[in-house]
C-alpha cells in the first residue's frame, strides 16, 4: 500500500496561559491518505482548528510549543524553518478558512488575489496566461460572470462568492493537501448547500487530498470517506464514514450522534451531554471523556486509553469499546 500523504505522529501543542500550561493537542497520531477526503469532527475546544494550523505551519501564538512529527512526503514539517514552510504553504498545502470576510485583502481585486497565487506557484506562467487560468478557476467554482468578477473587490462580493474565490485560489495552487476549516459555517443554508456540492464535485477533479474540518457531523458524513472524531485535543475515533455512522465505537461519538436532532416528530426531551468540555489547563488523569461518559468504569478514571486498532482501518481510544452497545 502506498504511504500516506501526511503522517502525524505524537503531535503535542501547548500554550502558556495566565492560569498555567494549556494542552491544546495531546499526542495526536493521524494519517491522511493520498487522494482521499478526511473529515475532522469536533466541538469547540477539541483542537481541530489547531491541528489544521499546525499542519500549515501557522503558529498558535508566541507562547505555544509544538512537538512531534508532521511528515509530508518524507519531510517533517516541524523541522522546516519559516522560509521552508513558506515555500510549502499555498503550493503543496493550501487552506480555505472559515471566515471568507477576513481572508481576502480588501485592497486587492479578485484578479490580483488569483494571479498572485499562480505567479507564486508557477513563476514561468505569463501574465496573460495567468489571467486566463484565473478566469477558468472562477468558472470552475461556479461564479457567474467570471470576467466581470475578476475586476471586483472583496467588498463587492457576498459571503458565498468570497468563499468561492478562496476555493478558486486554493485550487489554482494545485496543492497536494487542501485544508478546509469550517468553510461553510459562516454561510447561509442555501449557500452552504451550494458550497458543499461544489466541494463534492471538485473532489473528483483534485489529484490531492482534502482535510475537511467541521463541527457538523452530518455535513462531514456527506462529504468525507473517512472521519476522525476529536475531543479535548485527542483523537477518540477514526474510521470509514459508513462504518462509524452505522455503529459508533466511542461513547463520545455515540453521544454526539444521539444529540443530533432527528426528523422524527417527538415530544421526548432532546439529548445532550451533561457537563462541560475539558479545561485545557486542568490536569487529566485517565480518559479525557470520563467526566461526561455514561459508560465510565474505575479503569477509565485511572488509565488514559490509547488509540487502538479495531481492524478494517478503524481505531478507537476507549477501554470499553466493543463491550458497550
Amino acid at each position: 500500500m502506498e504511504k500516506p500523504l501526511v503522517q502525524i505522529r505524537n503531535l503535542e501543542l501547548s500554550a502558556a496561559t495566565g492560569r498555567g500550561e494549556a494542552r491544546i493537542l495531546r499526542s495526536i497520531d493521524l494519517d491522511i491518505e493520498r487522494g482521499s477526503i478526511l473529515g475532522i469532527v469536533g466541538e469547540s475546544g477539541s483542537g481541530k482548528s489547531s491541528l489544521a494550523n499546525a499542519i500549515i505551519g501557522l503558529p498558535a501564538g508566541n507562547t505555544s510549543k509544538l512537538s512531534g512529527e508532521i511528515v509530508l512526503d518524507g519531510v517533517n514539517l516541524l523541522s522546516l524553518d519559516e522560509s521552508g514552510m513558506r515555500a510549502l504553504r499555498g503550493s503543496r498545502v493550501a487552506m480555505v478558512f472559515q471566515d471568507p470576510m477576513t481572508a481576502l485583502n480588501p485592497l486587492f481585486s479578485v484578479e490580483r488575489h488569483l494571479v498572485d497565487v499562480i505567479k507564486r506557484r508557477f513563476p514561468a506562467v505569463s501574465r496573460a496566461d495567468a489571467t486566463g487560468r484565473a478566469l477558468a478557476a472562477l468558472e470552475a467554482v461556479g461564479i457567474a460572470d467570471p470576467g466581470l468578477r475578476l475586476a471586483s473587490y472583496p467588498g463587492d462580493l457576498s459571503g458565498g462568492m468570497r468563499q468561492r474565490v478562496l476555493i478558486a485560489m486554493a485550487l489554482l495552487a494545485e496543492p497536494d493537501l487542501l485544508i478546509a476549516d469550517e468553510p461553510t459555517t459562516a454561510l447561509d443554508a442555501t449557500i452552504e448547500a451550494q458550497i458543499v456540492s461544489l466541494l463534492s464535485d471538485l473532489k473528483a477533479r483534485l489529484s490531492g487530498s482534502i482535510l475537511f474540518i467541521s463541527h457538523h457531523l452530518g455535513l462531514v458524513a456527506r462529504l468525507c470517506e473517512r472521519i476522525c472524531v476529536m475531543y479535548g485535543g485527542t483523537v477518540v475515533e477514526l474510521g470509514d464514514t459508513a462504518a462509524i455512522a452505522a455503529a459508533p465505537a466511542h461513547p463520545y461519538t455515540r453521544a454526539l450522534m444521539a444529540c443530533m436532532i432527528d426528523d422524527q416528530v417527538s415530544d421526548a426531551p432532546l439529548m445532550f451531554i451533561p457537563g462541560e468540555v475539558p479545561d485545557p489547563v486542568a490536569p487529566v488523569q485517565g480518559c479525557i471523556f470520563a467526566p461526561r461518559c455514561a459508560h465510565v468504569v474505575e479503569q477509565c478514571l485511572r488509565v488514559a486509553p490509547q488509540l487502538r486498532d479495531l481492524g478494517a482501518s478503524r481505531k478507537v481510544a476507549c477501554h470499553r469499546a466493543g463491550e458497550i452497545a
Partner: protein
Amino acid sequence: MTAILLDGVSAHYGAVKSLDDVSFAVEQGGRVGLVGESGSGKSTLCRLLVGLRLPSGGELSVFDRPVADHLRTDARQFRRNVQLIMQDAVASLSPRMRIRSLLQEVITIHSLPADETWRWIETLTARLGLPNSVFERYPHEISGGQARRLAIVRALALKPRIVVADEPTAGLDVSVQGGLLNLLIEIQRELSLTYLMISHDLRVIRRVTGRMLVMYLGQIVEDGETEALFRKPAHPYSAALLSTNAAHAPGKAGQPIILHGEIPSAINPPPGCRFHTRCPVAQTRCKTDPPSLRRLPDNRSVRCHFPYSLSFA
C-alpha cells in the same frame, strides 16, 4: 389573546426595503419559528417586535395594542413583557460588569422583588447546568456556551410573556444545545410564554416550534404548521431550504435542491415574484405579476402563483 399581530407591516429605511407587506398573528402560548437567509428581514422583524424600531408602514400590535402606544405609555412594562435574546451572546453582556451585577441590573431596573428573583435566577442557572461560581465572573472569563446560556437566563429572569430569540443556539455545540432547548420548552410550557424563534438550524425549528414562517427578501413566503410544512412545503423556496436539511442526515441519500445565485439586494428587489430569479419552476407570469400571501385550503398561507410545484425526495 393575540400576543402578536402584524398587518401589512413594512420597514423601509432609506433605500433599503427590509420588510414589505408582512402580516401574521400569534396567539399567546404559541411557539413560532422564523427561517430565511441573511437579508430576508428576520432580524429587522425581531427588532420591530421588541420596539427597538418602529415600522414605516402597516399595523404592529402586541397584546392588542400598537407597539408605539406601549412605548409611549408603559415602555418599561412592555420591555419587561417582551424580551429579546440577541444573536451575539458574548457581545450582549457588558464586559465591565460581573455576571452577578449584570443580573442584578435587571432586577433594579424593573424593581423586581430581589430575593424571589434571585431564587428564580438560581433555579434557571442550575437547570442549565451552570455552576454558581459563574456569577462572580466577568463575561470574558466564561465560555461562549456559558454566555449564551446566561443571556437566556437574563431574558427569562423577568418572567416575560413574549420571548423573541434570535438564533438562541448559534455557536453552541450540538452536545449542549439539547439541554438548552429542553429548558426553553419547559419554561415556555410552565409560564405559557409566546416564543418567536429564529434559527438557521432547521432541525431545531422542526423540533421546537409548532408553526413556522419562511421569509425571503423582506416578505413572508409561507406560513403554516411546522410539521406539515416540513413534510410538504408549498413554496419553492421553502422546498429548497428544507431540502438542505434532509440532505444533511448521516446515512441518508436525500439530495438538496441547489438554488442558483444568491438572495438579491433589498434596495432593488426583482419585479414580479421576488423569488423568480432563483426559482427552478418559475413561469412567465412570475416575472411580472407579484403574488400575494394567500390562504390555501390546507391551513397554510403561501406567496406563490404555483404552490406545490417543487418537491423534494
